[in-house]
């Protein structure tokens, strides 16, 4: 077990308004989310001395403009002018989970006391994913000429492999989309809060990239979320009940860049990340009370459930049936609605919900008697990070 388990905790969480289109600059969303998280902790901005983010714009073929399409650490420093800032980082490899892990490390090292991590996501005008222009460089020279564009298609090919190799039926995925939408009705911050979705809606919806229909894809939004992390001792003195970080892991396997369609890439990524989280925390999948698993595209949940060890390979679409992933089920899953229903703000939303469930602050959607709260904060491939938050330090 990890000697530093439960020495850092998530305290406050914050949200900006999520809108379908970019009506206000992204920097304003990020600032709103950060201020909201600091206020939730009962802190003042002057207490914040650590900043971390993963600023990437996942939409392809759009200009990167700081403050408009991304919000960098530089941008946040300039907006907040924190008088006591003592540490900052901007990560590049493991999505927002990597920024959270860096903040945990900084707190353990004692180089800051109250760190804020935010994720701000821009929804550009026009087509979200674009192929390269006239020429395809780098890894895309082997994919773009054939019409392979964004990550959705990359995940779709792995999904057909999974479906046909395991003789499975994509219609079973309706259960995930519909269950998560019901969860979103209890989350006022969700983009699709109180917008109903039925199994029939799912089955009748248009195909985007087979086997993905519209409701297998998360909804692109403009918005930001943020969290305050601090040491366990300090967290106990703040307003919210702490969610203690019991362990974390990150993906430590990588196949050749541009190798599209490989199912093993997802599985090895998820296994390498979760193995560390299980070892460090000392828990096993059977002991998990509630799970958030990244769902930018629905199939990501399959790869997560299987590679993290919640079920066997080929069984995930059966595993999610029969009420198992509902709030009262054996493994309540994506209890905030997931990205499919809250909107595409990447995995910090999953981390927030994991922390809220562990600290008993999830309101109407709180799962009963939660102690062990698991998070897979991004697709297991390439960027996978995993976390366990607990209510009771040990």
């Amino acid at each position, binding site marked *: 077990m990890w000697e530093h388990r439960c020495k850092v905790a998530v305290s406050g969480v914050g949200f900006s308004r999520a809108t379908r289109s970019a009506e206000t600059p992204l920097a304003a969303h990020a600032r709103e989310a950060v201020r909201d998280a600091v206020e939730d902790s009962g802190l003042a901005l002057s207490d914040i001395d650590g900043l971390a983010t993963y600023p990437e714009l996942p939409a392809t073929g759009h200009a990167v403009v700081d403050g408009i399409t991304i919000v960098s650490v530089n941008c946040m420093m300039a907006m907040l002018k924190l008088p006591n800032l003592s540490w900052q980082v901007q990560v590049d490899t493991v999505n927002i989970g990597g920024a959270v892990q860096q903040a945990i490390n900084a707190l353990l090292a004692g180089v800051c006391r109250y760190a804020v991590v935010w994720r701000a996501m821009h929804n550009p005008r026009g087509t979200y994913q674009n192929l390269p222009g006239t020429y395809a460089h780098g890894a895309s020279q082997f994919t*773009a000429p054939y019409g392979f564009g964004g990550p959705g298609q990359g995940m779709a090919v792995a999904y057909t492999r999974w479906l046909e190799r395991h003789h499975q039926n994509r219609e079973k995925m309706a259960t995930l989309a519909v269950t998560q939408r019901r969860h979103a009705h209890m989350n006022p911050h969700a983009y699709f809060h109180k917008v109903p979705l039925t199994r029939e809606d799912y089955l009748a919806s248009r195909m985007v990239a*087979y086997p993905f229909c519209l409701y297998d894809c998360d909804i692109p939004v403009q918005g930001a979320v943020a969290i305050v992390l601090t040491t366990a001792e300090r967290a106990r003195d703040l307003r919210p009940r702490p969610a203690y970080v019991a362990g974390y892991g990150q993906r430590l396997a990588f196949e050749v860049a541009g190798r599209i369609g490989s199912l093993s890439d997802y599985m090895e990524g998820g296994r390498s990340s979760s193995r560390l989280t299980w070892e460090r925390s000392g828990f096993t999948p059977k002991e998990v009370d509630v799970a958030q698993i990244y769902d930018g595209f629905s199939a990501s949940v399959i790869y997560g459930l299987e590679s993290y060890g919640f079920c066997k390979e080929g069984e995930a679409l059966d595993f999610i049936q029969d009420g198992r992933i509902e709030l009262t089920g054996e493994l309540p899953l994506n209890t905030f609605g997931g990205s499919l229903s809250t909107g595409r703000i990447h995995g910090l939303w999953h981390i927030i919900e994991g922390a809220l469930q562990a600290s008993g602050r999830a309101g109407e959607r709180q799962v009963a008697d939660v102690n062990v709260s698991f998070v897979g904060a991004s697709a297991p491939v390439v960027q996978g990070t995993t976390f366990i938050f607990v209510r009771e330090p040990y």
Partner: protein
Amino acid sequence: MSDWSQVTRPIPVPNEWTQPFWDAARQGVLALQRCQACGHFQHPPYPTCATCVATDLRFEPVRGHGAIYAYTIMYHAGDRRFASAIPYASIVVELDDAPGALLAGNLLEAPYTEAKVGRRVEVIFERLNDDITLPQFRLAGDAR
């Protein structure tokens, strides 16, 4: 059947690792990077062997027969250059000669509904310009 005649494809730009692949394709030959230490074929090209991390890698011709490893049917006309072909099959092929190396392509000369995991395919070549010829795939009658 997808209408590819109106489609303008992004043109691959070879680099130091990939030039031999495109040089061979221009001659109508499929050549993949092979590790001279362990014999493993890999694609896309990389500076080290993905299996044994050796650095002695050379391009060797392979026969263009294999099976569809995975596929997607594209319905969304995100990029207008591909709009006339929609819906179309983008496939990933594992060659008999190079297990583990995965090549992207389109399924040509057949309805997109013919794309299935395990379906036998063979390489054909689609000339884009004087420098670049794309390996592509069509259904093959052969049983392995």
